[in-house]
C-alpha cells in the first residue's frame, strides 16, 4: 500500500494538503483533506469595538473581502438594532453582485479554465492562466474584462477595489454618484454579452467532460442557500433554505438569528477547518453543500430573465437538483449573468441615488448575527458585545467550511475513479486537485490562514511511508 500526497493544491485560495492511501494493488482505500493553518480572527478581535469588525474581518480575504465586509456590517446592524435606509440596502446588494461577478470570473477564467480549456492532462508548466491567454486569447480577454467590470463597480461605489471602507454599520458612508450610474448602465450590456459568450462556449465544451461530470463529487447531498420570500435566488438578504437530495424543501425561512438551531459545527482531527452539518439530522449524515451549484439547486428560480432561461436549460440537461460538483463551474457562469442582470435592475431603481444611506445608533443589542451568500456559499458572522460595544465573543462560519465534508467525499470519489497506483500520472492527481477547485474553496478564509496559495497530494504505503508526493504551485 502507498500514500500519495498532493502538497500543495494549486489555483485555490489558501493552503490544502490531500493524503491518498492506496492498497497493494494500487487502488485507493481512503483519502483525507487537511487544512493546515489557523487564522484566529475570532480570538484576536476580542475586546475590539464592534464597529471596527467590518474593517478587520474583511482582511480575512483579498478575493471576496466584500462578502466579509457585508456579513460583518449586517451583524453590526443587528447590534445597532436598526433597519438600514432602503438606498443603503440596495447599494450594498449592488456591491455584492459586483463582487460575485469579479470573484466568479476569477474562479472560472483564472483558476479553473486552464483545466477546462487546456485539458486535465496537459503540460502542468503551461496549465495556468498564461497558457490560456496563449491558446484562447479571446476567451481569456473576456474573463479579464469581466473581472475588471466587477472590480470597477466596487471601486466606483466604494472608492477601493480591495478592502473598501464604504460599508459601515448602519448602511454605507456615501451615496451613489449619478455619473457612476450612467457609466455602469452604458457598460453593462457588454458585460452581459461576454458572459453569454462564455456560457455558450462552456456549454459546447462540456460534452468532452462527461467522465468528470459523472465522477466529480456526484454523491447526492442536501443543499443550503438563501432565497427571497418568493423562493428566488437572493444573495444579499435572503433567508436560509435547505433542500434535500431528492429535491424536497426540508426547511426554509431560517433567519440569520436562528442559524445555530440548524447548523452545528464538528471539529475534525486531521484539519483546522471545522465541518458544519445540518443539526436536525446530525453529524456526519447532515452533510450539505453550499455555493453556486447549491444556490441554483435551492432556489426555485433566479428571478432575472436571462439567468432564468439559462437555469431552465441547465436543469433540463442535468436534472433538478443537479448533483455533480463539476457543475459548480456552469452554475457560476449562470450566477454571473444573474448578478449582472440584478445590477441592471438596481441601477434603474428610483431609490438608488437617494442620499439617505446611513442609520446612526449605539449599542442596542448585545448579540448580532449577519448572514449573506458569499460567492462560495453561506457566510455567517456572529458577534456578542458588552454594554460598551466591545467584542466578547465572535464566531465566523465561512462558506468553504460548509462544503468541507462534501469536498472530502468528492476527493474520495475522484481518487477511486481516476487514480491507479500502478501507473501513476500527474493528470490523475490534477483531477483530484481539480475537484477541490470545482468548489472554488477559500481555505485561507475558512480557517483564517496566511501564506502562499498552494496544495499538496501524498501517496502513502500500507506501512505509512510516503511513496510519492505532488507539490503544485
Amino acid at each position, binding site marked *: 500500500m502507498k500514500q500519495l500526497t498532493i502538497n500543495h493544491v494549486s489555483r485555490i485560495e489558501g493552503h490544502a494538503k490531500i493524503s491518498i492511501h492506496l492498497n497493494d494493488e494500487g487502488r485507493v482505500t481512503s483519502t483525507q483533506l487537511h487544512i493546515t493553518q489557523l487564522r484566529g480572527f475570532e480570538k484576536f478581535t476580542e*475586546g*475590539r*469595538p464592534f*464597529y*471596527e469588525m*467590518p*474593517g*478587520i474581518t474583511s*482582511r480575512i480575504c483579498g478575493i471576496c473581502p466584500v462578502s466579509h465586509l457585508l456579513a460583518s456590517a449586517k451583524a453590526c446592524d443587528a447590534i445597532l438594532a436598526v433597519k438600514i435606509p432602503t438606498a443603503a440596502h440596495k447599494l450594498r446588494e449592488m456591491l455584492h453582485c459586483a463582487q460575485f461577478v469579479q470573484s466568479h470570473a476569477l474562479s472560472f477564467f483564472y483558476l479553473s479554465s486552464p483545466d477546462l480549456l487546456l485539458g486535465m492532462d496537459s503540460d502542468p508548466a503551461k496549465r495556468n492562466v498564461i497558457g490560456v491567454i496563449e491558446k484562447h486569447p479571446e476567451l481569456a480577454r473576456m474573463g479579464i474584462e469581466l473581472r475588471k467590470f466587477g472590480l470597477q463597480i466596487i471601486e466606483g461605489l466604494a472608492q477601493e477595489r480591495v*478592502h473598501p*471602507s464604504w460599508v*459601515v*454599520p448602519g448602511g454605507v*458612508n456615501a451615496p451613489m454618484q449619478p455619473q457612476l450610474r450612467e457609466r455602469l448602465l452604458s457598460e453593462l450590456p457588454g458585460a452581459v454579452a461576454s458572459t453569454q459568450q462564455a456560457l455558450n462556449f462552456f456549454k459546447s465544451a462540456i460534452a468532452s467532460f462527461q467522465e468528470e461530470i459523472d465522477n466529480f463529487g456526484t454523491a447526492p447531498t442536501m443543499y443550503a442557500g438563501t432565497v427571497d420570500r418568493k423562493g428566488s435566488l437572493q444573495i444579499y438578504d435572503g433567508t436560509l433554505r435547505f433542500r434535500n437530495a431528492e429535491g424536497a424543501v426540508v426547511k426554509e425561512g431560517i433567519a440569520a438569528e436562528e442559524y445555530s438551531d440548524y447548523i452545528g459545527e464538528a471539529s475534525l482531527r486531521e484539519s483546522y477547518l471545522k465541518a458544519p452539518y445540518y443539526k436536525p439530522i446530525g453529524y456526519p449524515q447532515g452533510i450539505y453543500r453550499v455555493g453556486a451549484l447549491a444556490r441554483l439547486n435551492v432556489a426555485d428560480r433566479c428571478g432575472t430573465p436571462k439567468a432564468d432561461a439559462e437555469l431552465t436549460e441547465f436543469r433540463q440537461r442535468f436534472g433538478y437538483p443537479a448533483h455533480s460538483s463539476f457543475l459548480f463551474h456552469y452554475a457560476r457562469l449562470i450566477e454571473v449573468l444573474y448578478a449582472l442582470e440584478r445590477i441592471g435592475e438596481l441601477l434603474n431603481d428610483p431609490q438608488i441615488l437617494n442620499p439617505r444611506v446611513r442609520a*446612526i445608533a*449605539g449599542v442596542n443589542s448585545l448579540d448580532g448575527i449577519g448572514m449573506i451568500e458569499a460567492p462560495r456559499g453561506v457566510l455567517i458572522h456572529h458577534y456578542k458585545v*458588552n454594554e*460598551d*460595544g*466591545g467584542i466578547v465573543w465572535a464566531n465566523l462560519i465561512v462558506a468553504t467550511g460548509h462544503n468541507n465534508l462534501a469536498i472530502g467525499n468528492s476527493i474520495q470519489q475522484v481518487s477511486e475513479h481516476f487514480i491507479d497506483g500502478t501507473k501513476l500520472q500527474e493528470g490523475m492527481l490534477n483531477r483530484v486537485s481539480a475537484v477541490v477547485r470545482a468548489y472554488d474553496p477559500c481555505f485561507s478564509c475558512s480557517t483564517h490562514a496566511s501564506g502562499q496559495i498552494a496544495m499538496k497530494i501524498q501517496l502513502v504505503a500500507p506501512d505509512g511511508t510516503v511513496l510519492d508526493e505532488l507539490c503544485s504551485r
Partner: protein
Amino acid sequence: MPQTISIRIDGELVSALQGQTILEAAKQAGKYIPTLCYFEGLSAVGACRLCIVEVAGTDKLLPACTTPVQDGMSVTTTSPKLTQYRRIALELLFVERNHVCAVCVSNGHCELQNLATSLGITNMRHWYNYPNLPVDLSHKRFVLDHNRCILCTRCVRVCAEVEGAHVWEITERGISSRLTSGLNQPWGQVTDCTNCGKCVQVCPTGALAEKGWAVEEMVKQNDNISGLAHRKGGQ
C-alpha cells in the same frame, strides 16, 4: 517688548524674538520642521524627538520645540543625519505598540502615518513588540485604544491647560507607561471629565476617537483649539 535677535536657519538669516523656541522662529520664517507631540497653544514637552535640529557648535541634536533661540545661532532643519534620527524615532513608536493602519479609524488622517509617509518609512527594522493592550470603551461618546497611543501627552496637556479638567495623566514608567484617566478608573467613570472631546481632537493618531466611526472615518477637528489655548494664555 522682547528683544529681536538674528539667527540662521538652513543658512538663511532670519530675525526672531528673544524667548522664542527654534520651532516658533522657524514657523515665523516659513520654515518647516516636522513635529508630532507639539501642538500650538499647549506647553511643549519635547517628547517625540521628531523636531530635532542640528545647532552649530554642539554635537547634540536638539528638539526645536523646547530649545530657545540665541543670538547668532545657526540651525539646520534638514540633513541626512536628521532624517535618519527622525526615522528611528518614528520606527520605535511604530514597533512599540500595535499600529495597524489598515483597520484604524484614523487611517488616512493620522499625523503619525503622514510623518512616516513623508520620511519614506516603508518597513520596520526592529521586531514588533505586540503588547497585549486594552481598549477603554467605557465612555459614552469616545474611545481610548492604548494600542494606538504614542504617549505624546497632547491629551494630558489640553485637558489640564485648556479645559482645566485634569482627567488624563501618564502612569508607570518606561515601556510600561500608559495613559490613564481619573484615578486610574475607566474613562466613563471619571466624574471630572466634561465630555468636551478636546483630547480626542488633538490626539494625532486613532488612540482617542469618537465612538461609532468605521475605518478611515475619524477626521480630527482641532483648528480652533490652538486659538482657544492662546485666549487662555497658553504658549
